[in-house]
C-alpha cells in the first residue's frame, strides 16, 4: 500500500467531483439547503394547516332539542361553535364538509335529566377529518360539563357531596430528564435520517468514479499507471466515504442551524410530541454525548455503504446501468431504518447483528442517554466486520478483468 498514490488519487477525485455540478448538487446543495427546506417546509405547512383548522369556529347542528330550550340556549352561548338551524340533509352536509358535526338530543332530554334518567346524546361526525375532529372535541367538552353539572345537582338534591362520584383526581407529571424525553423523540427520526443521508451522499461519487469512468474511457487510462490496484480502490473509496460523511454532516449542520433559528415555531409541537409539557425548553433536548456516540457508530456504516455501492457500481458498464442497480438498494436501506423507528422494538443480542437496524436501535438509546456497552461493542464490531468484508469485495471486484473491462 502506497499512501502517496492513495492521496494523489483521492485529491484528484475530490477536485474532479467538486468541479462537477451534479456532485455539488447531490453532495452540497441538497443536504445543505433542500433537505432542511423540505423538512421544515413540510413542518411549517403542517403547523399552518393545524392552526388554521383550530382557528375555525365549527358549524354545529342540533337535531331535535325543541323540548330542551335550556341546553340549546347554553349551546348558543358557546363562543367556540356556530350553531346552525336544523336541516334534513345534515349527513350530506357533513360529508360535503359544510357542517362539521351534528348532535342529536333525544326527546325530552332536559326532562329526562331532571327525572334522573340517563339519555344518550349522539354526535355525528366525519371520521378522520381534522376540523370535524376539533368540533367533536368541543361538543364532548360541552356535554362532559353538562354531565358533571347534572351529577352535581342530583347529589345536592340528596344532600350528598360532589366527591361521592369523584372520590379522587389524577394528574400527570414527567420525571424523565428533558434530554431523555428529547432523545426518545429525536432518537427515532435522527438515525433514520443519518442512515439515508449517508447512503445518498455515497451514491453519486461512487457511480461517477466507477461506472462513469468506465463509460468515459478514463478507467483504462488510470489502469495504465503503475499504481497498485488496491491503492486505486482505496483512493476512490475514501472519496466515496467523504461524500457519504459530508452529505450527512452538512445536512445535520444545516438542520441544527435551521432548527435553532426556527425553534420557536416548532417548540410547541415538539414538546407536545415528546409529552414534555413540563420542559421549558423550546426544542427537544438530547444528550450531547449521544450525538458523539451516534457519529462514532455511523462511521462503519458509512464505510459499509460506500464499499457496497462502490462494488455494485463497479460492475455496471455505464452510469445509467449503475443507477438501475443502486436505486433498488434504497429500499433495502430504508426498511430496517423504519423498523428501528417503530415503538416497542428493543435492542437485543440477535438484533444487534442486523446491519442498519442495529444502528437505528442503538442510536435511539444513546440519544436518550442509555448506554448498553455490550450491545454497542457488538454493533460496532459486527458493522466493522461487514464494512471490512464489503471493502475486500470491492478490491476483489476491481481486480477482476471481466468486471473492469466488461463491455
Amino acid at each position, binding site marked *: 500500500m502506497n499512501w*502517496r*498514490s492513495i492521496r*494523489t*488519487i483521492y485529491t*484528484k477525485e475530490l*477536485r*474532479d467531483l467538486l*468541479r*462537477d455540478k451534479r456532485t455539488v448538487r447531490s453532495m452540497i446543495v441538497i443536504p445543505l439547503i433542500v433537505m432542511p427546506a423540505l423538512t421544515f417546509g413540510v413542518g411549517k405547512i403542517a403547523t399552518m394547516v393545524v392552526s388554521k383548522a383550530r382557528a375555525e369556529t365549527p358549524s354545529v347542528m342540533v337535531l331535535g332539542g325543541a323540548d330542551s330550550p335550556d341546553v340549546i340556549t347554553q349551546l348558543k352561548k358557546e363562543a367556540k361553535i356556530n350553531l346552525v338551524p336544523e336541516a334534513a340533509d345534515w349527513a350530506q352536509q357533513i360529508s360535503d364538509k359544510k357542517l362539521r358535526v351534528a348532535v342529536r338530543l333525544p326527546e325530552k332530554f332536559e326532562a329526562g335529566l331532571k327525572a334522573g334518567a340517563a339519555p344518550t346524546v349522539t354526535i355525528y361526525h366525519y371520521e378522520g377529518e381534522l376540523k370535524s375532529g376539533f368540533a367533536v372535541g368541543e361538543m364532548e367538552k360541552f356535554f362532559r360539563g353538562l354531565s358533571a353539572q347534572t351529577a352535581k345537582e342530583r347529589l345536592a338534591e340528596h344532600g350528598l357531596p360532589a366527591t361521592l362520584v369523584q372520590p379522587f383526581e389524577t394528574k400527570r407529571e414527567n420525571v424523565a430528564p428533558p434530554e431523555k424525553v428529547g432523545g426518545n423523540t429525536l432518537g427515532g427520526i435522527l438515525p433514520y435520517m443519518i442512515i439515508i443521508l449517508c447512503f445518498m451522499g455515497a451514491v453519486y461519487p461512487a457511480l461517477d468514479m466507477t461506472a462513469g469512468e468506465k463509460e*468515459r*474511457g*478514463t478507467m*483504462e*487510462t*488510470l*489502469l*495504465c*499507471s*503503475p*499504481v*497498485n490496484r488496491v491503492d486505486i480502490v482505496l483512493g476512490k473509496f475514501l472519496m466515496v466515504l467523504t461524500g457519504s460523511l459530508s452529505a450527512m454532516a452538512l445536512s445535520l449542520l444545516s438542520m441544527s442551524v435551521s432548527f435553532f433559528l426556527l425553534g420557536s415555531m416548532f417548540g410547541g409541537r415538539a414538546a407536545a410530541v415528546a409529552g414534555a409539557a413540563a420542559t421549558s425548553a423550546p426544542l427537544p433536548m438530547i444528550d450531547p454525548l449521544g450525538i458523539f456516540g451516534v457519529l462514532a457508530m455511523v462511521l462503519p456504516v458509512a464505510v459499509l455503504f460506500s464499499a457496497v455501492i462502490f462494488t455494485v457500481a463497479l460492475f455496471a458498464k455505464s452510469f445509467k446501468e449503475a443507477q438501475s442497480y443502486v436505486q433498488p438498494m434504497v429500499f433495502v436501506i430504508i426498511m430496517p431504518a423504519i423498523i428501528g423507528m417503530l415503538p416497542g422494538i428493543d435492542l437485543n443480542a440477535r438484533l444487534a447483528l442486523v446491519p442498519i437496524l442495529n444502528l437505528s436501535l442503538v442510536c435511539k438509546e444513546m440519544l436518550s442517554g442509555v448506554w448498553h456497552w455490550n450491545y454497542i461493542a457488538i454493533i460496532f464490531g459486527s458493522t466493522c466486520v461487514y464494512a471490512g468484508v464489503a471493502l475486500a469485495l470491492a478490491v476483489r471486484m476491481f481486480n477482476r*478483468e*471481466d468486471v473492469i*473491462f466488461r463491455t
Partner: protein
Amino acid sequence: MIEAVNLTKIFRDKKRGEIFATKDVSFRVVPGEIYGLLGANGAGKTSTLRVLATLLAPSSGSAVIAGHDIVRAPEKVRAHVGFLAASTALYGRLTAREMITYFGRLNGMADAAIRARIKLLADELDMHEFLDRRCEKFSTGMKQKTSIARTLIHDPAVMIFDEPTLGLDVMTARAIVRFVRDCRARGKTVIYSTHVMSEVEKLCDRVGIIHDGRLCAEGTVGDLLTRTGETDLEEAFVKLAGIKEAA
C-alpha cells in the same frame, strides 16, 4: 525491449465457452524499432497490447518488457510503458496540466520534475495555449496532444500504441504518425497496432500479422510482399492471414 513468448489470453464466456483472444503469440521488439501489429477488427491486437501493458493478465505464456516480467512485476512494467489507445480518454473536468501532473505523480515523480517535464512536452507538442484549460472543451487534436503528453510524462522506454489514429481526422492522424516516428528516433521500443495498411507502410520497421488470435506471419513490409509475391500490402495481408473472402 519487448519480448513476448507464447502469449495466450483466453476469455471465458457463459454462452460461447472459452474464447482465445490470442494464442501462442511470440515476438521481439528492440529499442529504436517500430513493430506493427496488423490485423482486422477482433483479430486479437487490443488483447495482446493490453496483456503487454499489464491491463490484462495472460492465461499462459509470458512477456518481458524493459527487463520486467509482466506477470511477476506488472507495476514495474507499467512504470516503463506509455500506453496510448483510442479507448484511453482524458478526465474532462481536469485541465491538461492537471491531467499530466496527475499521471506524473502516479508514476512517482516529484512535483519539480513534473513541472520541468510538462514545460518540455508543452514546447515540443505546442500545448502552451491550452495547457490550463479543461480537457472537456478540447478539439480532437488538443485531446491527442494531451494524451501523448500523458503517456510521455515519465519518459517511458517502451511505447504501446493501440490504433491511436482511430476516428481521427487526417491532420491529427498525421501528427500522431510523426510523434511515433519521434519515439523511434529517441531510441524507444515501439509497438503499434492498426488495420490501416498505409500506416504500416509509412511507419513500421517490422510487421506481425495477427488473425484469430494467432501471429500468422512476421517480417519487414518488403519481406511480406516478397513472400506472397504481391505488390500490395493489403493483398499480402489477406494471403498471409489466410482469410477466405466471400465471392
